[in-house]
């Protein structure tokens, strides 16, 4: 287990390093400079560059940049909130995005698992049809459509949930964004769980367990559940991407003060440094969650934990 995890951690760090490099290069190639103001004389620009360290060789700049990023200094914003450290823009927003994303993933996964298992165990026609319709909808319809639908029904018509995010009740007003985001998670996890569980139910080891006269409940818990849930962890990783991109639009629609909203604002107002800093944050978030999922995988699957060599 230790060796596997060490490898995963090294890989994660290397990926993060490559991402930093790419982001840094993007900055280098970005047209213009922070100081392209016609009123500045050449000497002034040079002294500004010196004071920001921009006169040093590119490689030195890169390592300084990495050092600062790792210390949590993501640079300053140019245009949205001039000269404000980006970190301070994030402090309040990041937890909001994290909470909504995390809850969507958890909620969607739990709902998907439940539905998938029900569909795998009770193979009646009606359940099959309902399940297929639900999951197809969840996969085909983008989350912002669900968001619109819920805003109109649950928000506007029925007046159950607030239509906009509210600082005073962060959980309650997050309900609709979470619902909209979790539906696609639920659909994908549901379909995946069903096909996995169906395979496991048909597998030799479950058939064999039946021929030993074991109780059904034992077979379901010890043989079927665990083995069909392990592969679901892999899907969760890939769902994370769609969750992150989905959250960009959803945050805007419900006026959620998260980093998604910040990113869309930064993009539309050409605030490169914020865009790049946020790209880094998103990448780091993704890599960290992947790492967590890997650890989880490792804990539940002895084949990963103990390595594959027959002794």
């Amino acid at each position: 287990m230790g060796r596997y995890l060490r490898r995963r951690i090294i890989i994660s760090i290397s990926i993060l390093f490559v991402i930093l490099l790419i982001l840094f290069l993007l900055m280098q190639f970005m047209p213009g400079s922070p100081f392209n103001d016609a009123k500045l004389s050449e000497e002034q620009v040079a002294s500004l560059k010196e004071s920001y360290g921009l006169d040093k060789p590119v490689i030195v700049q890169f390592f300084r940049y990495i050092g600062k990023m790792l210390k949590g200094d993501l640079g300053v914003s140019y245009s949205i909130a001039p000269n404000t450290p980006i970190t301070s823009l994030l402090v309040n927003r990041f937890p909001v995005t994290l909470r909504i994303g995390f809850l969507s993933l958890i909620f969607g996964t739990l709902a998907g698992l439940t539905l998938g298992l029900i569909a795998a165990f009770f193979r009646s026609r009606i359940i099959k049809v309902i399940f297929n319709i639900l999951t197809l909808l969840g996969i085909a319809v983008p989350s912002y459509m669900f968001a619109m639908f819920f805003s109109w029904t649950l928000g506007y018509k029925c007046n159950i949930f607030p239509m906009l995010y509210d600082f005073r009740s962060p959980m309650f007003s997050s309900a609709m964004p979470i619902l909209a985001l979790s539906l696609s998670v639920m659909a994908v996890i549901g379909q995946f769980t069903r096909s996995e569980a169906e395979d496991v139910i048909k597998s030799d080891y479950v058939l064999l367990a039946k021929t030993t006269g074991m109780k059904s409940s034992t077979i379901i818990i010890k043989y079927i559940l665990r083995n069909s849930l392990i592969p679901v962890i892999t899907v969760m990783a890939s769902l994370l991407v769609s969750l992150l991109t989905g959250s960009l639009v959803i945050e805007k629609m419900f006026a959620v003060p998260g980093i998604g909203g910040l990113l869309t604002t930064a993009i539309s107002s050409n605030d490169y440094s914020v865009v790049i800093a946020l790209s880094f944050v998103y990448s780091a978030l993704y890599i960290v969650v992947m790492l967590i999922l890997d650890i989880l995988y490792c804990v539940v699957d002895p084949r990963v934990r103990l390595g594959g060599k027959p002794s």
Partner: protein
Amino acid sequence: MSDIARIVLEVKDLKVTFRLPTGDVHAIRGLDLTLEENEVLALVGESGSGKSVGVKSFMGILPDNAVIESGEALFHDQDQTVDLLKMKDSVRRKNINGTKIAIVFQDPMTSLNPTMSIGAQLITVLRSHKKIPKKEAYARGIELLREVGITDPERTMGQYPHQLSGGMRQRVVIAIALSQDPKLLICDEPTTALDVTIQQRILELLQSIQRARGLSIIFITHNLGVVSKIADKVAVMYAGKVIEKGTVFDIFYDPRHPYTWGLLSAVPELSDSKQELYSIPGTPPDLSKEITGDAFAPRNPYAMEVDFKAEPPMFKLSNTHYAATWLADPRAPKVDIPPELAERIRKMKQEAKDYAEG
């Protein structure tokens, strides 16, 4: 006990059909089997002849789309007789599965739960009928692993299936099958997926366990070479039916059905190494279509007109030997078995005699 051997299992006219979107597949078309106490019955036949489906149907583990159309599978146990086919799953689970009948599958790689340690699996099975203490189950597990020839059982108990070799896994599967002291063991090609040397050892293991415990075994294989080593009786299956049955001597020294001739001719172990390996021409019939006459007729070089029109009954050739071929009808012309096969049989008999004489 009386001289008359006691019958353990009688399968009569079993018919199993698979319902597929493309139509029905009649996989088992009237299977009859008889198994006596303390006897090893080999069930042989080409791939797709229905060996696995046949035994799965009375173990209650057929796929959802399979339907048992007719037949019975009578299991005799201490003056009690039950029909396995008419039994509810819950009753079968409680009274039969594991404790009376157990099964070993072909592929040891997929037969064990990949996320449970060997010990946990054994203990779970051991406690499935009787709630014995965990400690006791553990000790019993160790004993069982020893019985199947695992030298370091304490270590194996803590290991997971993926850490074991194929042969070791199959030993564990056998230990699990034996754990509740069944009377009848079904082995569905238990050595096919293993290396040749390991095949031999597993075979010997099964043989010694059979003798020690007085088990009845149904041994499924399409390898006749294996049959001669382990079995007492042989039932040859073709297209969902038994077409010839008898003792090992009947089948190996005096085969009567042209299909059995083909199977015997195709055994590599028996052939001269130089000779090209024989294989039966043609392919098995399409089981989704109606079959008239002898199902083997289209591939049978000795087929007569009647073979295409009427299905042959089981002709009784001796007290132990039966064959479903019109060649066994008294009115049929005398057909000699293929000369190469006759020569082989002669050699086999000679070898057996030499062996017996030392």
